[in-house]
């Protein structure tokens, strides 16, 4: 994990072009990034690893624009999230993920050991599908909070709204997810 103090120190060092600092930053953050991508991809370890690599490549390109108003890990999650969305909807439009793309990932993710995990995973994958079908601002908030392990305060800072607004969004999202799960169960 990356403590705020270390984060500041490492970023200061990074600003001077310190390669060692860059390596430490990666070392401290990559596990969390990988975990978020695993959850986003529904447990596809290989895809998550590829996307993690992609995420950091993009991050190095974009690092000059990082204004440090949000936490580094939140910023990184935003990139991971976008990377993931780009992956599944390529070359589709940006607003919503179409069902076809989601099913496509689902097939992929089930292939390795589909039979034994099928039942246990069913609720998870339904939930995941519901999360990915949320409107974009809710989807980002929910995935950042639960899958990206970001605190409400950090998400609030990164999206320039208040913590209360983030909690309100989470609540709205819960409501929609619950409806979706109930409907699927019926």
């Amino acid at each position: 994990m990356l403590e705020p103090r270390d984060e500041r120190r490492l970023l200061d060092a990074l600003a001077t072009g310190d390669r060692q600092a860059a390596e430490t930053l990666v070392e401290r953050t990559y596990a969390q990034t990988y975990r978020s991508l695993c959850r986003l991809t529904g447990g596809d370890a290989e895809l998550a690893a590829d996307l993690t690599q992609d995420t950091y490549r993009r991050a190095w390109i974009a690092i000059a624009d990082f204004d440090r108003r949000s936490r580094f890990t939140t910023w990184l999650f935003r990139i991971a999230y976008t990377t993931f969305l780009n992956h599944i909807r390529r070359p589709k439009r940006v607003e919503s993920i179409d069902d076809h793309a989601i099913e496509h990932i689902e097939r992929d993710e089930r292939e390795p050991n589909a039979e034994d995990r099928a039942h246990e995973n069913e609720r998870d994958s339904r939930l995941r599908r519901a999360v990915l079908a949320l409107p974009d601002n809710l989807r980002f908030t929910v995935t950042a909070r639960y899958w990206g392990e970001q605190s409400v305060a950090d998400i609030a800072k990164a999206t320039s709204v208040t913590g209360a607004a983030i909690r309100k969004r989470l609540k709205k999202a819960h409501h929609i997810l619950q409806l979706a799960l109930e409907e699927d169960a019926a």
Partner: protein
Amino acid sequence: MTTHEERELERLLATEETPAPPADLLARLQDDIPDTLPVIVANDTTIAPRQRWQLAAAVFGVIGAALLAWTLRPWQHVDEPTGLSNPAMVERAVVAESPVSERSTADAPQVPMRVRGGDAELDDGEASDALSRQAAVAEESAVLEESLATPDPSIAREQERAELRAASPVEELTVTSEAPEIDLNRVVERNREARQETPTASDPWTILRNMPEVRGDRINVGGNESGQSSRIVPKPSVAKPAPPPRMAKPPQPASPSRVNAQVGSENKRFADLRREAQQLEAELKKLEAVEVPAAPVSTVEAAPAPGPSADTVNEAEAEPVSSIDGVTITDMKVVGTSPSALAYDDDGNPIVPTIPRERSLAAPSTGGSAEPNDAPYGDMFFEPYGTNPFIDTEDDRLSTFAVDVDTASYTVARRYLEGGNLPPKAAIRIEELVNYFDYGDPAPEEGDFALHAEGAPSPYAQNDDYRVVRFSVRGRDVASADRPPADLVFVVDVSGSMDRENRLGLVKRALGLLIDELRPDDRVALVIYGSQGQVVLPLVHDKNAIRWAVDRMTSTGATNAEEGLVLGYDLAVRDGRPGAIKRIILCSDGVANVGRTGPESILQRIRTAADMGVELTTVGFGMGNYNDTLMEQLANQSNGRYAYVDDIDEAERIFVENLTGTLQTIAAEAKIQVDFNPETVTRYRLLGYENRDVADQDFRNDAVDAGEIGAGHTVTALYEIKVRPDLDRTDALATIHLRWGSVAEGQVIETSRTLLNGELAPTWESASDRLRLAATVAEYGEILKRSYWAKDFDADRLRAEAQRAANRRRDQDLVDFADLVRRALALIERSQSPSP
């Protein structure tokens, strides 16, 4: 949803097991680190803690000084009756507080400051005060520089200091507000009648009463100033006789210099008015020569000429204010009864008639219904426009109206319902409810618009012959990168009423969202108005400066909306770049005390500016003494749009998700005419657009004011029609014509689409989701409006339809809508059942 369910859901979301990362992942990632790392832009968080403290101490010191200056202000005010200390002081506070300027004043000790205005000149005391303060600031910056220079070998420090030195010079600010003129010792007794004649924060209705565009009038029937009961009645088509002119009283004593300045500007204004009157007279004569619809009558109120600031305006309007060469002008309220009355009245006051906009000459669809204002919030202002009736195609086969893409009515109603109250009927404009939703109509493949038409058997009809028909006009999309750069002028109401419910806080956050969305080539200026209007920030690119200026707004004083708008418009017209989108964004609760000139003069200026390409977006905030009518009318008259923000999510919707649509207009003066085929359709009823009526014959008259459409916007019109039995599938039911001024093509274009009987869905159940949603939203509106046409509504069916829409498309807006429908129906059912 119960807490238990919620916790369970959170658990499910949070405890998803993940495999350990692959062993080689870290090595792969570290290999990817580029050889040359880009430098991160330094900002305040990179300053070491010790230095941050010093910086904070310095900034606090400066802010303290500025605050002291503020507290001393009223006292100075009395001492220096020129009153110039006020704006100048504010400007100095701006300079002193700004962290940017702290740095730059050391390099450039001359603080650029220009003061403009009638007799605006700093006197010696003022100037030396300013100089000594400048010196203090410079000293503080020097200390700051020194502290930054303390040895700290890190290269980051060096870079930072270099950047600090290279910081751009402070923006040059221009003070454009005029000197206030406040006599604190003067007390004026005013009776109730006099108060009611004065447009104030508690009764802005007087403003609208005199506008020919507004078709209703309000009669106070009781209550006090904070909770007037009133009845809304249709305005009589003939103006009331002029009130007897008040007796002139001698002008108030004033210092000689003031009087000279006043008389000078008075003469100028008088000359202006005379010129304007002569022009209008000529125009009227021309009109008369053609054909004048039975003496158009206009009531004009030109309130007293210059002098009073908003603080004194109440008294000023009740009392005579000024004299010109021995002629005393009391108030210029004059009622013209016919064009020939144009000239000067007995007192020598010029009569300034306005030519009513042609739209206002169109016969109203229906009269307004008279209902007491029983709103749960005091002093709310809504204008009832009635409900469209069914019209026989034999009588009038054409239905013509101006498009409207406002959405405010939906959010206003939501605000009421979420507070557990039913909204007043007059707050409901069905077209604004229907247009709130995105129906997903496909965008045009080429050209500005795609027209869509569909229909189905009416779910609320008494028999089988009724159909619901939906026409939609979908504007082309414009990518954010493709729109021209924008010059935005935020005009923000910082009057005392904006303090309520933290309205100003919401404005700040909403504008913050907007600022984040802007492109680097966009510019923003900030004008605030309380007792006076004031330009806080000229048009600048620097987002940090804009954010900073927005954040430091505080609420104060009375409401001089006019001055704020005038300053905003002047700025946009003067400094706006050619080719850029020029837009005023007015953030207010609509409570307005229009300052020294009448509403006609604001509207005149707005219309002129609109012709020059400056548009106005009015964004409403707050409830409690909210003025819906003024905000809507301002936007209507200015080719602008009207939205109401009840929470930050709504601000996000307008300023973030739909920003390009909000800024980029693709069609000007757009009108719709639906031509029903009398062979197949016997009657029709348009749902909504009651105050958007255009005379049928004016559809191809491009001088008639109509509506604007932004990029990606969809305008939806719903009709309920009655068809003749036994129609063929190929029978045409209606043709929709759209006529608009294309911004891209630079010409007026017309297009049309015909709806055939065979295109209608055979049953309501087989109708498209779009149609069903639109019809459901309209029915919700009709019920809230207590429309005659929805008196026998089926609550269960409506609830089910709304829930169905939410389930079909898991859209947050639709989930909210289903919730609102449930709330509204519960409230209506409760109000109908006898109380225990």
